[in-house]
């Protein structure tokens, strides 16, 4: 049934509010109140509550938990807490320098206001197939740290998502942060996305990371957003690149492969045909840019 009479973006309906100071306390609240929802920046959660897509009886604010807000350079990886705001990530010199791909994914999210509020954890846990931060984490093969009543566990970013809005998280689990491996010096990366206007959820997005030895591809990651129920890595396209010497022709063939191997749907942001068509050009651009960057960085 059409919930038209339940939408009310003036207000959110009542809930009980919790403001734990530790992860352990937060998990305990989640365990005690099934259906409780963590609140980070609220930029996904609050609109969903106003639209009554979610009606949690308990809301657990994560922003008062200090350990969720750390950014740490750990040498071969950078650790980013789940409640670190997108704008801090964008401004972080460490991340800009060491994880330029993630930095550009994050910069493309929403507006300054949205990024001042929104967090990387929220972007990932919301599990939108269009989430730009999630795309970057998948391309960089990040690890997701999860805390639950039974303790900690870790999951690869690409296995974290199970569908639109669906993740491997249990109801009583939290994401605490991400370990993002720093790509080697000879890795070039590129993220591009297309939307209807400059403030829009991507109609389609792509992140590419190429580790190069001159013009030879040592390793390749090709990840697309908004073309499947989750951000997806295209193994076929990656295989086509790996070990090969890059030429314009190879780039074009790979782009063709990208376009052929996705099965997008039509939604209000774009048609399936559009996504398939656009993915080709976008793949050419992203691969070419990553190639150039990887080559020059050596």
């Amino acid at each position, binding site marked *: 049934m059409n919930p038209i009479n339940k939408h009310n973006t003036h207000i959110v309906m009542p809930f009980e509010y919790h403001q734990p100071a530790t992860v352990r306390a937060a998990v305990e609240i989640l365990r005690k109140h099934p259906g409780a929802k963590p609140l980070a920046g609220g930029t996904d959660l609050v609109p969903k509550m*106003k639209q009554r897509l979610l009606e949690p009886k308990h809301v657990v604010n994560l922003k008062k938990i200090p350990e969720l807000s750390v950014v740490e350079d750990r040498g071969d990886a950078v650790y980013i807490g789940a409640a670190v705001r997108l704008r801090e990530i964008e401004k972080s010199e460490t991340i800009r320098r060491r994880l330029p791909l993630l930095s550009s994914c994050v910069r493309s999210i929403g507006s300054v206001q949205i990024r001042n509020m929104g967090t990387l954890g929220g972007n990932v846990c919301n599990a939108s197939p269009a989430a730009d931060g999630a795309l970057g984490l998948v391309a960089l093969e990040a690890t997701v740290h999860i805390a639950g009543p039974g303790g900690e566990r870790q999951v690869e970013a690409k296995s974290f998502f199970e569908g639109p809005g669906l993740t491997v998280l249990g109801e009583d689990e939290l994401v605490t942060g991400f370990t993002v491996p720093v790509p080697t010096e000879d890795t070039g990366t590129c993220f591009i996305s297309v939307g209807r206007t400059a403030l829009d959820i991507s109609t389609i997005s792509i992140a590419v990371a190429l580790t190069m030895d001159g013009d030879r591809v040592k390793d390749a990651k090709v990840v697309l957003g908004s073309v499947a129920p989750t951000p997806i890595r295209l193994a076929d396209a990656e295989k086509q690149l790996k070990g090969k010497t890059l030429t314009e022709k190879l780039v074009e063939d790979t782009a063709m492969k990208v376009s052929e191997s996705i099965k997008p749907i039509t939604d209000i942001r774009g048609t399936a045909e559009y996504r398939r068509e656009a993915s080709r050009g976008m793949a050419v651009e992203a691969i070419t840019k990553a190639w150039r960057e990887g080559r020059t960085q050596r």
Partner: protein
Amino acid sequence: MKIDVTINGRERSFDVPPNTLLLNLLRERLDLTGSKYGCGIGECGACTLLLDGEPVLGCMTLAVDCDGRTVETIEGLGDGDGLHPIQEAYLEEGAVQCGFCTPGFIMTTKALLEEEPNPSEAEIREYLKGNVCRCTGYVNIVAAVQSAAGKMR
């Protein structure tokens, strides 16, 4: 829930249900209606205000989340009768038409110029992209930001 919030320089205490949105607290309890409702879901920027100096959206911020923090709204700008240079610039450049978007734009502009006193046109446009104006086509608004930057240097 009891909260203490500094609003436009004045410390205030409230007892609010947790589902109270900051925007509604300001508009309904304090009659600070300069921050506008335009969409309620983050798309228009009409509710932009500064929380601890950073531009955020009042329509998606819980009042309880502002406990112990500082809120600045359009009503807090300028001193008494005098206008802030940004407000002056908006008037001089014809950046105000219907004016419904104006408070949000001015607050975003303030944050921008505090962060970057010399923004390029591209930087201005990028920073303002979360604020929708349907009247001006943004031309005079961008010009006003440039002019305000000049005034404030």
